């Protein structure tokens, strides 16, 4: 028998190996030696980054009977995922030890979810995509539920699990129709080829399946009306987990959607782009409007995510290279922004305290001027005010929309982002225009994490002023 080429999957294998090492290390170390868990986590992420660089030959490689693909898109987005995961670990490590988590379990489950994301990004087969999704989601359910003494966290985990399982089922159901209609194909290229040869036959059946697939996919993105879990999960999750869910997971989710819709089912257009367009517009509207009523920052960011994912989906609606590249640019910069936002909140939660109410931030500019300035920049970036990066993210999407002739949609999107600006600047208002009600204490975060946070926020300005390099990079990821 022939063995599959293992070189392209080296990072995945290394990650799996490191998770086992981490679990073993956790089992055989005493309480005082638990620091090794953190070290192993970081080694795993750095190692994956290095290996990914090593396996990059600039050409698309397929392995495991073409079920696994390593193309530019996978390379680039996986690199971002490792990088952001590493930064997230730096932000949350103090929180994890403050809240007396079993650090071994926490980091192992976290790495499992990263592994799930890697598979989601690199899968070229509907079933493998599904397997990646499940690995990723199950790890996240567990990660939320780890904070088991907390009613809210348990509720969030339960809600996420039930709705997530339902969505996965719906997705699988949709896949089964495509499988049947194309005569037994799961491989994305095969599906495409089969549809070409089928012509108009079975389109009805395919479209029927497509409805379920889109429903399953947009659940993961969190578009209205499949967004119900987002605010609840954000609010219920401890900040450390919200940092992960709210930022870096979005990249994998978007690539997942791109693989399905652009990679496999592009010929079913305009069926899915119309669906996506409607859902995106609904998300922009409801996400932004409902966020106004929130007093809990995590929940507010949850609704804001819904709105942002609406923008992301608008990029895909255009089904153009520009649009998809704008989508990648948007999701990467959004992750970077959200990472900083959640990171700051995590760092402001000392001991058992959880910084999550808008009132907690009152007068932050007086007690922690630097932190307040950072939050302000994050908020203005999310609102899309230049010279911060959020502006160019929205700009690229709008440019793609207008180039594709969606003038009305573009106008709608900017009006919705105006509504969005209101709740972002309200956070700035609370921090700068009001007096502190209680003194917030910073967690004892190490200097390195703090400097990374500064760099992270500085990047929002730097990319905002000089977006060219990242734009070109995103173009290169897509054009292949």
């Amino acid at each position, binding site marked *: 028998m022939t063995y599959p080429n293992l070189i392209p999957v080296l990072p995945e294998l290394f990650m799996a190996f490191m998770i086992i090492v981490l679990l073993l290390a956790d089992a055989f170390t005493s309480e005082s030696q638990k620091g090794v868990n953190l070290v192993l986590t970081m080694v795993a992420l750095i190692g994956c980054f290095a290996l990914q660089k090593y396996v990059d030959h600039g050409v698309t490689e397929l392995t495991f009977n073409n079920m696994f693909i390593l193309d530019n898109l996978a390379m680039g987005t996986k690199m971002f995922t490792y990088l952001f995961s590493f930064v997230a670990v730096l932000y949350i490590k103090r929180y994890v030890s403050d809240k007396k988590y079993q650090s071994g379990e926490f980091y192992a489950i976290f790495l499992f979810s990263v592994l799930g994301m890697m598979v989601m990004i690199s899968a070229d087969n509907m079933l493998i995509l599904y397997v990646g999704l499940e690995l990723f989601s199950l790890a996240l359910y567990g990660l939320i539920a780890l904070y088991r003494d907390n009613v809210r966290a348990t509720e969030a985990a339960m809600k996420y699990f039930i709705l997530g399982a339902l969505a996965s089922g719906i997705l699988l159901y949709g896949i089964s129709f495509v499988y049947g209609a194309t005569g037994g194909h799961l491989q994305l290229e095969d599906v495409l080829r089969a549809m070409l040869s089928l012509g108009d036959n079975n389109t009805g059946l395919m479209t029927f399946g497509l409805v379920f697939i889109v429903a399953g996919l947009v659940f993961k993105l969190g578009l209205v009306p499949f967004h119900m879990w987002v605010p609840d999960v954000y609010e219920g999750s401890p900040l450390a987990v919200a940092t992960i869910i709210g930022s870096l997971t979005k990249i994998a989710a978007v690539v997942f959607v791109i693989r399905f819709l652009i990679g496999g089912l592009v010929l079913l257009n305009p069926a899915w782009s119309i669906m996506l367009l409607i859902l995106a517009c609904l998300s922009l509207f409801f996400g932004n409007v409902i966020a106004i009523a929130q007093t809990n920052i995590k929940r507010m960011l949850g609704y804001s995510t819904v709105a942002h994912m609406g923008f992301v989906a608008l990029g895909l609606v255009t089904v153009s290279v520009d649009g998809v590249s704008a989508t990648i640019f948007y999701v990467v910069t959004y992750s970077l922004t959200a990472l900083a936002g959640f990171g700051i909140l995590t760092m402001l939660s000392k001991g058992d305290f959880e910084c999550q109410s808008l009132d907690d931030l009152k007068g932050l*500019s007086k007690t922690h*001027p630097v932190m307040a300035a950072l939050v302000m920049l994050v908020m*203005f970036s999310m609102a899309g*005010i*230049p*010279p911060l990066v959020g*502006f*160019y993210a929205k*700009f*690229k999407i*709008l*440019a793609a929309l*207008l*180039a594709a002739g969606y*003038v009305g949609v*573009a*106008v709608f999107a*900017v*009006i919705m*982002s*105006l509504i969005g*600006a*209101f709740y972002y*600047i*309200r956070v*700035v*208002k609370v921090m*700068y*225009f*009001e007096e502190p009600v209680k003194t917030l204490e910073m967690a004892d975060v190490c200097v390195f994490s703090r400097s990374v946070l500064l760099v992270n926020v500085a990047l929002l300005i730097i990319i905002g002023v*000089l*977006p*060219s390099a990242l*734009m*070109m990079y995103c*173009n290169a990821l897509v054009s292949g």
Partner: protein
Amino acid sequence: MMSYLLSLTIWTPIVFGFITLAFNKNDCMARYVALLGSLIALVFSLIVFQTFDPQQTAMQFSENYAWVPSLNINYHLAVDGISMPFVMLNNFITVLVVLAGFKVIKQKVALYNAMFLMMTGFISGSFCALDAVLFYVFFEAMLIPMYLIIGVWGSTNRVYAAIKFFLYTLIGSLLMLVALIYLYNQAKGSFEIFDYYRLPLAMNVQILIFIAFFLSFAVKVPMWPLHTWLPDAHPEAPTGGSMVLAAITLKIGGYGFLRFILPIVPDASRELAGVMVVLSLIAIVYIGLVALVQKDMKKLVAYSSISHMGFVTLGCFLFVGANLNTWALEGAITQMISHGFVSAAMFFCIGVMYDRVHSRNIADYGGVVNKMPVFAAFFMLFAMANSGLPGTSGFVGEFMVIMGAVQTNFIAAILAGVTLILGAGYTLWMYKRVVFGAVANSHVAEMNDVSKREFLILALLAVAVLVMGIYPDLFVAKMHASVGHLINQVAQSKI
């Protein structure tokens, strides 16, 4: 150095703004560093003013570098006779604003000065930018410092005012962004503003683009009925904030009409000129009447600003056939510059009194002249300039616009002319109630006359107001060629 002059004018204050932030423990240093930064920027803009060649119609001091190559966005700066005076006005006012905050601002001094310096840079940037996205970035970036200035250092109702200001301004500019990207696609991937001048556009498209740009700039000017943020923002903003807001940021609206709307959509401008004239006249007459009944001095001056800016928009849209009226157009620009000096002076005068009595109500004053004779003299001059007395800068612009209006639209001319009386009415009546009469109460009795610092600011503004009133050619001569060029551009139909 000469080829980087505009960049230096723009970036010096921004860099100094960041340096100022570093002195957040040392208020005194922060003030002097900020003053230094604003002075250097002023020097650069004076060099631009001096070396500017008024005969040329082409753009001068041009700088053009690729900025975002993948979207064909360029860092393209240059000035002509229309934008150059504004850059100087902007830097001049900022020096005064930094000085005005010297003793008065005691809270978060470094942040206060840094915000003003950065805003100056952004404002200069939007006057100099010839790339639409570059313009937009500067234009929007201005919101952040202004939001903080109103919200942090404002008075009681500052939060409401700050948010209202922010959202009002944002709605217009977002629609402009859509219009710009639309033009980008039409112009085959170019964000050069001048490429849009040559772009043929159908009438219905022109009208839509006109509306998008109009919303953006009319909010800034502000034109009736989009003016309601201004009377809220002004009273709440600190003195410096009001000065910058009235003197400079409003002018970006007027500048936008000249740089974007008229040359990019000339046919729509001609089509809708009637509407614009009517809106301007409503601003001049109706808002003038509103100003008459104000009890709050800052509100009164805010309404008077709207009324005066009505002359600007009136001057921009007076057509004779296909041609714009030269008199009116130059009058509009002159009026903007003059209003920059006069409104800054008016707000500063109110600030001087507010610092002593902590009230903006006209009713809380009376007989100020008995305690502050020097101040009262300056205030008199500025009040006269605000009512358009010949010999002061306030007269020149309004006179030119009315002259132009007589040639084009006699009824508009009469209405606008009659309103000069209204302007004198509300300004001088306020002046009478505040300054003359017997000392009204114990607070007024405790007022002492202007300090050296305040005297310096008042004197500089007085010189500016008088020089412009007596020798307006200093500014007007610089803009002839560019205005002529603009009129030729607008005269060509693009359909």
